[in-house]
């Protein structure tokens, strides 16, 4: 699904050039449930932006679902994002003056789906996440968990291949965090690739693969069985202080 080959990315601010990604190789298959971890400055946000086609990269190749993503103009990037990728953010990023239903329906608006039809589909998704009664409420009237569920519904409505979640539980309490992770797991069970960026080990532990970044390189990839051990380690070792 996602293949990154020797990807470099630098940010230039004034005379300083900051080399963030230093030849990153990464392969994520269809239907994987992956978390990306790493200390701040390790390049995980940059990686997520490149994966989400919100930013371009300098060197290397990135292919998404067999399609090489390089040097797209803004319109092409917008269309690809709309069709392939669903975003979930830490701060939900719902549009404050639109109600839950309109927020969920927004990606379909950009697909030029008729108003009636997209509101109907949006209601289906809200129902699926138990938010039917809240469809006409503005984001300000919803709890954090509800907001994130609306955001996930919005990310899913365009039937993307990949969900990119940037600290999806960062603004939520533990119970709600687990609830949201449960939803993401269900999404993943339907075959959608889910990639989350997090710094919380217990959240990362709920995914099936953890990619740890350090200084713009992949330091470690933990999968399957190892992950089980990792989970064990998180649970038992109270002094565990990885990052």
């Amino acid at each position, binding site marked *: 699904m996602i293949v990154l080959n020797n990807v470099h990315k630098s940010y230039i601010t004034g005379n300083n050039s900051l080399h963030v990604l230093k030849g990153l190789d990464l392969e994520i298959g269809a239907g994987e449930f992956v978390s990306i971890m790493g200390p701040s400055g390790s390049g995980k*946000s940059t990686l997520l*932006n490149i994966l*989400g086609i*919100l*930013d371009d990269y300098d060197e290397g190749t990135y292919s998404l679902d067999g399609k090489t993503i390089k040097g797209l103009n*803004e*319109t092409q990037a*917008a*269309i690809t*994002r*709309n*069709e392939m990728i669903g*975003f979930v*953010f*830490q*701060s939900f*990023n*719902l*549009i*404050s*003056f*639109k109600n839950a239903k309109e927020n969920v329906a*927004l*990606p379909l*608006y*950009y*697909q030029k789906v008729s*108003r009636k039809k997209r509101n109907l589909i949006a209601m289906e998704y809200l129902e699926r996440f138990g938010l039917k009664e809240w469809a006409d409420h503005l984001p300000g009237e919803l709890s954090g968990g509800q907001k994130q569920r609306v955001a996930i519904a*919005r990310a899913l409505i*365009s039937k993307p291949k990949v969900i990119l979640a940037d*600290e999806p539980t*960062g603004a939520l309490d533990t119970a709600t965090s687990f609830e949201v992770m449960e939803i993401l797991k269900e999404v993943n069970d339907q075959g959608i690739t889910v990639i989350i960026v997090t710094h919380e080990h217990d959240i990362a532990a709920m995914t099936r693969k953890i990619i740890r970044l350090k200084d713009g390189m992949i330091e470690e990839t933990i999968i399957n069985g190892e992950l089980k051990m990792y989970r064990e380690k998180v649970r038992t070792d109270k002094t565990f202080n990885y990052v």
Partner: protein
Amino acid sequence: MFNVDIWQEIFSTIKKNKLRTFLTGFSVAWGIFMLMVLLGSGNGLQNGVREEFADNAVNIMWLWTGETSIPYQGLKEGREIKFNNDDYSFLSTKAQDIDQVSSRFYLRGDITYSYGKEYGSFSTSTCHPTLMDMEKIKLTKGRFINDMDMNEFRKVIVIGDDIRKALFKEEDPMGKYIKVGSVPFKVVGVSKDPRSDNNRQAYMPFSTAQRLFNGGDRVHNFTVTTKMVKTSQEAEAIDKEVRQQLAQRHSFDPTDKRAMGSFNMLTEYIRTMKIFQAIKMFVWIIGLGTLIAGIVGVSNIMLILVKERTREIGIRKALGATPGSVIGLVLMESILITTVAGYLGLVMGVGLMEALNFGLEQMVAGGGGDQIFFRNPTVDFVTAVSATAILIFSGALAGYIPARQAAGVKPMEALRDE
């Protein structure tokens, strides 16, 4: 671009910022309001002055004679120059650039008009039928002098309304005979200038007057209309040409203003209208300047709006909004604000000028219209339409820079958690 959604989006942001939208719109409304008031006033002034010219045809020209003041071809100065009936035939048939001609013969001394016991002293204008058209004589009753009157030397007369009041009171003057001096004349018409409170003039056929009052073939002066031209230079050239021709007939220096006097209205008219064209241009410049100030205001507000909505625009872009759709959103909002506000300003401006016009018309209808130099201060349809077009265009202009800015929003920067 024109669907319910985009309007809903625009209205929801407008609703969120009512005061700001109002203030922004107000600056545009004010701009267009001022433009309309200025243009209307300019038109009013122009119409008022044009009304001053309306007493006569604008291409009217008067010719009269005197004594020569410059020796010419061996002839001494101080010769008296006299027009005659031959000059009339020359002007009306052979002269270049002359359209209509009317001769005038002055009756000597005070002429008393009487009807029954009523009498009074009034002025008499002896003329050809063409004078009615040239001096824009308005009749309230009957007819003007016609060719038949001229040919048959009929003793008919058209009296001014004040003469009618003095001699006839409430009686119908039509067909009655009044005495002019000792000669009875039949009243065939009553004239009244609605813009003047002096209607003490009577008109009689030139031919009759010349014969009855021993005029021989003497003509005291001519009223003519000239070919209509566009520039004052051309009008002056006509004036010169006419002088030249008559100077040749009567052997005087064409530049001798004392030998023959002339006044050419067209030159004045063209000059005055030129001034108004300049005023109009000036008004447009000021009006557009005011409008530009309003538009800069809108642009400014839209820039702030885009800045405030950076995050929202970022979200939209992350969800697949193309730059085009973002530009459309900002541009449409800007156009909507300017168009609605501008239209309100337009309606208010036009409304004010129409109300003013109504008031003026009332004043004119109530008499005293000749004191007003300000008439029909309204803006015509074409101007209103072009102002609307300017508005929509300027709305687009005002929104363009902010829209470009919005389209350039980088989602990853807009969405960065702070």
